[in-house]
Structure formats: C-alpha cells, structure tokens
C-alpha cells in the first residue's frame, strides 16, 4: 500500500489529517486428538483501518481491500459519515512524540515435527497422570505473530512486532457418573524450557480436584475465588476504570476519584509495557506512549484510563490506553496488562459457586493470594479470600 498516495488523496479530498493503521496477523495452530494430528490451521491476514479528521469530526473506516482503486470510495464514504456525526466531543489525531520502543525480541518459529512430538507427548502424559482422566478433549499448540504499524499526516510512523507460542490442553475425568473438566494454558518461549510434567500436573489437579465436590447449603460464607475465575470476573468489570465510561456517567466509579472504593488490601495497576506480560507494547493504537498507572492504591481510586478523546473530554492527558478491540474496531479506552497486585500468602483453595455485587465483593477482602500468573492474558488477578459471599447451594 502506498501510504503517501493515500495521504495525498485524503488531503485533496479535504481531510484535515489522516491516519493509516495496519495489523498483519499470521498464525499456525496444531490440534491433536486421540493420538494424531486433528487439524492444522495457517493464516495470513492484513487488516487496514483509517481515521481522518473532516470538518472537525473524526471518521473511521476499515478494509481488507487496500487496492488503489478503493481509495475514492473509502474517502467518499468517510466524508459522508462526518456529516452524520452530531456529537460535540472533541477528537484529534496525535502528533509525533518521543517513544521508548521495547527491545526487539527475536521470535523463533518452531519446527512442525517438534510441535507434533510435543502434542503427542503431552496427550500421553495427561492420560498417564490418573486413570480417571478418560479424555483429552482439547489439545492445541498455537504460534501467532502480529505486526502493527501506525502512520499519519502529523508525522507518526511507528511499527511494533510481537509473537507468542501457547500450549493449551483440556481434559475430562470421570468417577462413577460424575464427569468434570479442566483446562490449562502455558506460554512457551522455548520448547526445551517447557516443564511439561508441571503443566500436566496443574491440569490433572484442576480436573481431579473437582470430583466428589459436595453442594453446600445456601448461606453466607468466607470464600476463596480462584485466580482463573476471579480474573474472568475482574476482566468483565474492568471497563469501570475507563475515562470514557466515567465521562459518560455510566461507570460505577463515575464520581469516586480519590475515594476509597475497595478494601485497603486491593491495589490495581495497568501497564501495557509490563515485562511479565506476553502481549506488551510501547504505544497504544493511536501512537501515544504507554505508561504504568496505579488505578487503585490500597483501596483508593487514584487514576482512570484515557484515550486521546476521553482525555480531551476531561481536560487531561491520554494515559496511552486508546486501543482497538481488533483492527476493524474504532479506538476505545481499554486496559492492557492490568492486574490486582498479589499478596504474600499462599491461599488454600476451595471451589464454590458465589453470587453478589462485584464492587461490594472487592470491599470485603480478607486476604489477597500470592499466586498471580500472567500466561497470555492481559488482565489478571491472584486468588482472593473474601470475608462473606452469598452461596446458593442446597
């Protein structure tokens, strides 16, 4: 794609400024089932998104067809959209800024034969872990790489690459008529570094630990919510830190800045460049440098997340959290590499089914566990022991 040609055409069409965002995703996935390779998937997808300022309005478009003969149609469609926008919210494309890029990580593509041998070995070890495991219902090795570029007429010209290998396995165990399933995932930097026995042990303990569970009577109990389950809950509520949601008045934290909102045992950090995370970046999808933020410190809500738009609306600076959900989604305010800071205690886990208000739950913390684990996630929590949670059982 000739970006300069697009920029010139946009200027000619009357755009004040114009931006081209591209994401090239490549992937190889091997799936193993019952002793043989089940599926192999390979992909190469280049997505392109445009943003432009036209008559003071920000307009968006995205396409997988960037041939030059599409240019006039795309620009005309974007101009039509500008006329439709009636919101008074200020928006702008960003100027070029000094950005400390992350050090280049060399990404190694593993040999397909080695990957198949790993999957075969993993399946055998899972079956060998305990005779109650009767099925390995999910076993994949995925290698994915991504290259992101942002260029605009204000001088931004950025590029960043990332890649990750992941081993994922799921198993089912049976005792009597009871069937339980478990699941485990591991980021693999080098095949030789992978502790497969530990991986299989974690999966085996997860699935077997659920067998013979009794149903508690309904009531209120102290409850430990295990890190995987709590991570899902926390991720579902993470938009509460969004400056956009707060500005619109639809976040539960809409008027809580500098107030105590959770237990003093809770501290929340967001750092897109966090060295422990698998998916790191030096700049957000607007080309703004990222930074480490303490969103909640000892229970007090200290800082919200911002994109350029939400920062303009609240008269502050972007925190570098203007991200797209995918290349074809508009920029929104999103946490990236966000976590509840772990404590020091090793919690003894019990599995329960709980109900309640998540914000109330985080006010009710007895102990924060020490078991934070990133894997390939971008939002994580350790396990937490809560004082009092409603349990619905018998």
């Amino acid at each position, binding site marked *: 794609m000739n970006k300069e040609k697009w920029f010139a055409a946009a200027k000619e069409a009357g755009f004040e400024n114009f931006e081209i965002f591209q994401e090239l995703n490549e992937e190889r996935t091997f799936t193993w089932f019952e002793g043989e390779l089940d599926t192999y998937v390979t992909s190469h997808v280049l997505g392109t998104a445009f943003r432009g300022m036209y008559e003071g309005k920000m307009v968006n478009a995205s396409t997988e067809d960037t041939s030059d003969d599409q240019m006039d149609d795309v620009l005309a469609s974007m101009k039509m959209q500008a006329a439709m926008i009636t919101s008074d919210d200020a928006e702008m494309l960003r100027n070029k800024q000094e950005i400390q890029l992350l050090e280049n990580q060399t990404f190694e593509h593993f040999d397909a034969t080695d990957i198949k041998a790993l999957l075969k070995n993993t399946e055998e070890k899972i079956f060998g872990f305990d005779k109650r495991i009767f099925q390995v219902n999910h076993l994949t090795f995925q290698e994915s790489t991504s290259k992101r570029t942002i260029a605009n007429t204000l001088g931004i010209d950025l590029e960043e690459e990332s890649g990750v290998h992941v081993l994922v396995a799921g198993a089912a165990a049976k005792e009597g008529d009871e069937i339980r399933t478990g699941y485990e995932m591991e980021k693999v930097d080098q095949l030789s570094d992978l502790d497969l026995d530990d991986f299989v042990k974690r999966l085996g303990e997860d699935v077997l630990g659920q067998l013979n569970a009794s149903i508690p009577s*309904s009531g209120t109990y102290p409850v430990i919510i295990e890190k995987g389950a709590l991570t899902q809950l926390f991720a579902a509520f993470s938009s509460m830190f969004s400056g956009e949601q707060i500005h619109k008045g639809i976040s539960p934290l809409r008027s809580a800045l500098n107030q105590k909102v959770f237990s003093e045992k809770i501290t929340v950090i967001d750092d897109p460049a966090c060295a422990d995370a698998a998916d790191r970046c030096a700049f957000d999808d607007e080309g703004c440098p990222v930074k480490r933020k303490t969103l909640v410190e000892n229970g007090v809500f200290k800082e919200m997340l911002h994109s350029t738009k939400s920062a303009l609306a609240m008269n502050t600076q972007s925190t570098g959290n203007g991200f797209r959900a995918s290349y074809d989604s508009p920029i929104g305010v999103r946490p990236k590499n966000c976590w509840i800071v772990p404590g020091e205690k090793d919690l003894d886990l019990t599995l329960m089914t709980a109900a309640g208000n998540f914000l109330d739950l985080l006010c009710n913390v007895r102990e924060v566990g020490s078991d934070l684990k990133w894997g390939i996630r971008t939002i994580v929590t350790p396990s937490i022991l809560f004082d009092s949670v*409603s349990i619905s059982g018998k």
Partner: protein
Amino acid sequence: MLDKKMLECYLTLCMKSEADFAEIFEEDRISEEISALNDRVEKVNRTITKGAGIRLYKGLQSVYGYSNETDEESMTNLINDLRNAIGAKEEGINVSLTRVNYENRHPVRIQFDSVSQDDKAQLLVRVCNGAKNADEKIVKVQSLLLNVRQNVQISNSEGRLISDTRVRTRIRANAYAEENGKMQSGFYGPGAGMGMEFYETVIPEDIGKEAARVALVNLNAADCPGGKMPVVIDNGFGGVIFHEACGHSLEATSVARNASVFANKLGTKIANECVSAVDDGTIPNAWGSQNIDDEGNFQQKRQLIKDGVLTSYMIDRLNGRRMHMDSTSSGRRESYQYEPTSRMSNTFITEGNATFEELFEGIEKGLYAKRMGGGSVNPQTGEFNFSVQEGYLIENGKITTPVKGAALIGSGAEILMNIEKVCSNLSRSQGMCGSRSGSIPTDVGQPAIRISSITVGGTSNE
C-alpha cells in the same frame, strides 16, 4: 469473488495431495455500525472484509488456511502449504464445477446503503426519545445500529459451486436509570435477516422504551433470594437457557467426540414429554437464517427433540464423517477466518398447551424470570449458568416483588427433565452466539416454561 475457471484450477491443485475433499470459502462483507449516546451520533464505522478460507480433508484430519490476499501467487502458496501439511502428491483429480442456482428465501427490499445517513441517525434519535420519555429517571441512552451484507461463494472438489447473500440489521439499546445515586441498566436489541424494511415492522421508540422499562424495574428491585426453587422463564430471550444448556450439547462439535452429555442418546428420552424443540435455519428473514450453510448445503429445519425424545443432532460435514452420519447443513462460521463447525441457527422450544396463568399455579415460593441475560455452558458436563436481567418473586401463585442479581445454575440434562409445563406464547429473540467457529447470529426462543426446581443464585439468603 474468484471466477469458476480459477476456482477449478485451485481445487484441482488442492486435490494433488492425499486429501479426499477440498473446499474454498470466499467472503466479501460490508458492515456498518452507527453508535449514539442519547440523541447524538458519536461514531460511524464502516468495514469491508474480504478473503478466502481453504480446507482439505483426509479422512478425519483437516487442514485449513485463510488469507485476505487472494491473488494467484498468494492463493497458490497457501494451497501448497496445506498440501504439504496433509501430504502433497503429483497426481490428483481434475475438479469441474457446476453452479447451483436456487430461489432466495430471504429477499431484501431496502438495502442499507440505499438509505440516507440522516434517516439512519434518526432511527437512533427515536430510540433515545422512546427511552427518555419513559421516565425522567432515565439519564443515559446508548444505542447502536448495525447493518451487514455478507456475500459468500463456496466451491468444493465434489463440483459444487454456490453463492449466498446474507443481509442483517439490528438496533441495540441500553438505557440507564438513576435514583439516589444508584444506577441500573436495561437492554433490548431486536434484529432480523432483513434490510431497512425491518424498521417498518418495529417502532424504534418502543425499543428504547423496553430497555428503559427493564432499567426502571431493576432500580427498585430487591436482592434475589438464593436456593432451589421452581422457576417460570418467560418467552423470547428466555430461550437462551435451552440454547446454552441443551443446544450446544446437541452440536456435533461436542457430540462427535463423545464430549457431550447427550452423545449416543438418539432415540432416547432426554426431556419431559411436554418438550419439543427445533433448530430451523429456513425461517424467512429470521436473524439466524441463511439460504445455505457455510459449507454450501441448503439450510434445513431440524427437529431436535420430539415429545421429550432426542431425534436429531446438528451436524457439519467433518463431524458427520466422525459420527457416520450425514450433515444436517449446520456448518457455520463467523467469517473466512474460521473453519466451520456445527452451530445453531434459530433454535427454540415449540409451543405447548399450558396457559400463562397455569405456569404459576401451586407455586408457593419461586422465581419468575421475565428477561434472561447471558450465560455459558460446559457441553461435556452440561452445567450452565445464566444471569436473569429482569426477575420477580412468585409468592402463592402470584408474581410479586421485582428482584435483581439472580442467576440460574444447573445442568442441561436435569433441566430438560424438569420442564413440567410449556405455554403457547412462542416468540424468538436475537443474539450472538460464540463458539469454536466464531461469533454468529442466532435466534433463541421458547414459549414461557415452568421448571419444577432449579438452583437460583442470589444475594439475599432469606
């Protein structure tokens, strides 16, 4: 889209391998999203998706590759990569394609790009007005108009070449009610496999009003008590419970690998006799309908359960091989970026004989789930959980106090047996279903049903 001659060349190249079947799925999709906060349009996003996915089978093994670079060199490289993965050969069959023509069962009268942007924006303003006029406690209204036109062309080594155009539209409304510092939201989001003529069949103000009504009910709702109790689930989106708790476990994706509670149960009683259910991808212009599935087979109506007896699974081509059964035209995918697998279309419990009032008779204490929220299921164990978006207590056979924070927890096999009454007020609602082959539009539905006992998760332990 690629022309017939080019497709024949590519498929012939695919078959110069140990593959016994090859397929090319092409997609060209335009989608448009217009979002508003209150009566102001905030964002417009138009997306063009264009690419191809190629699949080769060798027995039960499959290799799949996809790319949005469909020039000859890229396609040839992709095919060679797949041939090498499955076992390349010098010889193979020559594929000759015959185009299959058919009558479109889902005609569209008004394409979304023939309607002015102002008229589309006006729809969202009307949704906002409907919500705001419902009550002064409605402080914010978010709305989204979604329009999609997806052209697909599917060709395979059996010589089939077939195309389809799927047009869909939907408005989603979220209304936020606030009182004394407390805020609650309500959602309503109807859609159809139609063009903009859909908005002649629904009133935009009513969409906003319905979202506002749910938010207002929850504003003054008490905490829901937990424990086992009888539950009446209303029609429409109440059918999400059947979709999640039973539908996913009837998909060949899990059945073929014996990873479903309903595997090997064809012809056996899996539900109470009052329960019959279908998955019908042929309903004209329904949200989950298509002329053909994403493997190029004509959509069907599948009778899943008849009078409590399991009569059919939902089967795609590859899982059909594993099960030694024919495809039921259930192969679906979000886009060319996904390999298809067995998925639902418009799935619902069919009408029963009970009246709405009869569902409540004799219930001393229970829950009336008027509107369900989202949920999830583990198909292997059949265990599910769902949130209740709008709920009320049932006390001595009557609907009484509104309650919030309720969840329904149980297992699909158990719940099907515990459906003891089915009403005659069938309706369907629209949703997006996520699974291995991505996020696809599906209708859920049911008449109101009564479940004799289910675990209700709640925050009040009265």
